[in-house]
């Protein structure tokens, strides 16, 4: 057992920190509180930030040099995400493109597809969004009904996708669509579709936070060219599932780092209000602190497993459940402990604790739903890890 980072990894972290010090001018929290910003200018800021990161070769780090990467390991990727979180850097607009589509193209795409799409994805000339979920297939993704019908050499896509993060600003969407209505898994194919065309309508979805970071997309005979089919016909499900697995590890250190920042804010608020010495408050705070540290321990373990060549299995469901439910406990407790000031509206006013608690409280509701709800994750653990039978 060895939880030390290697000297090279430590060196990577030091360089990254220095780079962030030099290049990140304002934290994301400050940006979002700046009344001169609107949703569009914030996206533009993120685009510029991604270009900076890309120029410094921090985007797609795990890919080979040929595709702009450095062949970095999962550990370095995790360090990158941890440091970006600690520094409160903006999230890059193409994070779904980078984490899902990039690997899909590298492993399953054609040479032409890689050349055409990867560079513009990396430097954010084109923003990508993901077209997997549909209004009536969320948890049960394979029940999707959007269909792609042949039209000459090409395809025409009809149906509806939803929860497309960054959809309202995206140029392209990668879509799972049905090319065979009868084959549940084998009838799904993977297409790249430009959004700026007749037959594609993108509507923003307003979230409970008041923002509209998601969209829903209506396809009405939208054109998907044959050359923009990824893999073979009917390989879409397999590609999607493989690629979802590549997300592994990246968030293992970033999540506890994110909650450390929030915990520091909570402590500051409690200190300011003179409550930090109350035993009831300390007990609740202590629990939040140790839970986050246990989460970090799980993360280090996953990372160590990856580093020694073990693929993490469905145990990653444990991490998903843990961080998403913890985030709810944390913001919920903060609202309780800090008193009415913590309820002040999202991103409107500062509290003594310098965290937008009301916003976090609302936003934390999404984590247990997206990317496989807590219910689905528990099903996975019961069935695939504990091998409990299906009813």
């Amino acid at each position, binding site marked *: 057992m060895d939880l030390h980072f290697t000297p090279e990894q430590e060196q990577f972290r030091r360089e990254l920190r220095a780079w962030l010090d030099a290049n990140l001018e304002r934290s994301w929290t400050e940006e979002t509180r700046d009344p001169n910003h609107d949703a569009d200018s914030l996206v533009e800021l993120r685009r510029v930030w991604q270009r900076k990161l890309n120029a410094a070769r921090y985007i797609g780090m795990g890919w080979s040099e040929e595709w702009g990467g450095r062949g970095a390991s999962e550990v370095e990727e995790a360090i990158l995400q941890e440091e970006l979180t600690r520094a409160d850097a903006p999230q890059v607009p193409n994070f779904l493109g980078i984490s899902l589509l990039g690997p899909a193209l590298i492993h399953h795409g054609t040479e032409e597809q890689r050349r055409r799409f990867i560079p513009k994805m990396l430097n954010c000339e084109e923003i990508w969004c993901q077209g997997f979920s549909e209004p*009536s297939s969320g948890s049960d993704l394979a029940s999707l009904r959007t269909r792609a019908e042949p039209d000459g050499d090409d395809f025409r896509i009809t149906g509806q996708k939803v929860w497309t993060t960054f959809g309202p600003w995206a140029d392209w969407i990668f879509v799972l669509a049905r090319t065979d209505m009868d084959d549940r898994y084998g009838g799904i194919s993977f297409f790249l579709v430009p959004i700026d065309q007749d037959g594609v309508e993108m509507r923003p979805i*307003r*979230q409970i936070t008041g923002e509209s970071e998601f969209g829903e997309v209506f396809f009405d005979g939208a054109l998907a060219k044959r050359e923009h089919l990824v893999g073979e016909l009917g390989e879409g499900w397999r590609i999607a599932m493989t690629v979802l697995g590549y997300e592994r590890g990246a968030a293992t250190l970033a999540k506890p780092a994110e909650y450390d920042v929030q915990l520091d804010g909570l402590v500051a608020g409690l200190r300011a209000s003179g409550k930090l010495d109350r035993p009831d408050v300390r007990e609740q705070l202590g629990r939040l602190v140790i839970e986050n540290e246990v989460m970090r321990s799980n993360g280090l373990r996953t990372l160590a497993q990856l580093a020694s060549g073990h693929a993490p299995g469905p145990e990653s469901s444990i991490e998903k459940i843990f961080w998403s439910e913890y985030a709810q406990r944390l913001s919920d407790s903060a609202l309780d402990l800090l008193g009415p000031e913590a*309820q002040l509206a999202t991103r409107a006013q500062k509290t003594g604790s310098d965290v937008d608690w009301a916003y976090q409280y609302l936003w934390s*509701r999404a984590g247990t*739903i997206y990317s496989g709800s807590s219910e689905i994750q528990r099903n996975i653990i019961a069935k695939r890890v504990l091998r409990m039978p299906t009813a």
Partner: protein
Amino acid sequence: MQFDLDEDRALLKSSTRELLEKESALADARTVIEESAEGYDKALYAQLGELGYGSLLLTEDEGGMGVLAFAAVLEEMGRVAFPGPFLDLALAVRLLSQSEAPEAAEWAERAAAGEALVVLARLDATSGSPTRFTGGRVQGTKRFVPFGAHADALLVETGEGLVLVPRPGAGWNAVAQPTIDHAQRFAEVRFDDAGSLVAASDAARTLLEDADRLGAIGASALLLGLMDRSLELTVAYTMEREAFGAPIASFQALQHRCADGLLQTESTRSAVYRAAWAADETPDDAGFLAAVAKAWAGPAARYVCGQAIQLHGGVGFTWEYDPHVYLKRVKTLEQFYGATRDQLENALQSRGL
């Protein structure tokens, strides 16, 4: 023994439901919440005033129907997330009607009729001196005054007692304090205004204790309505929504959480109605039972309305669907009118512990 409401109160409750469903269905309520400046429908409040709702919380001798009737109405208001200062206004009316100060009766009448908005201003600003009443003037700053910016008069808690401050000619020196709950309009109000004492310190303390107790019961009744309707919406949604070829309502893990929701909701009903009945009939244990109801209702509603979002899945996280309106209301109501932690302490103290 009987748990059902008597005929008069049952009729009041059902006619309130009818009225609210006609005049302020959730969709309308949401329009008011999201678009109006004041945060409530003035015409509708005037109509409620005409119908006698404004004086509902007074005793029957005073022309009201008492706390149980009030709780029944607030439950219905909770169900449609009825916007505005109904609870705060009723507390002010009750308080003014118990004062012997000459101005009090008139303001009580106007407030009850829905012609004037009067609410309590309690919480001192976190920094600065406590609010004082000296030389006929109120000086100090109050935060989280409900619907304070639009009030016609404020009942201000000061070191010297409870002071009625009519809106000054130039309007309030107020800053809006928008919270997580769009239905709630708080303001921080800075006072340097003329006012008149409606109750001196000891009398004020008694009145405010009464207001605290009724505020707790009223907020618990609102929470009851909110979680009751939220659970209904959730169960209905799980019946419609299909996954893996079956309505998700058939999945046992979801069933058990809905069952827990029912346990929480029905237990809240027992606690709230018992506390309200006690406030009318057995005042000796009403303080304890009010603390019990509020300390239970807050976390219960948070559980039910949080699960509502979870069980709605993706759409539960959208602005368009209703669950978030309930969750947000719940979070604010849980924190105010005696936060859970404070009510637990109240419960112990009223038991001599």
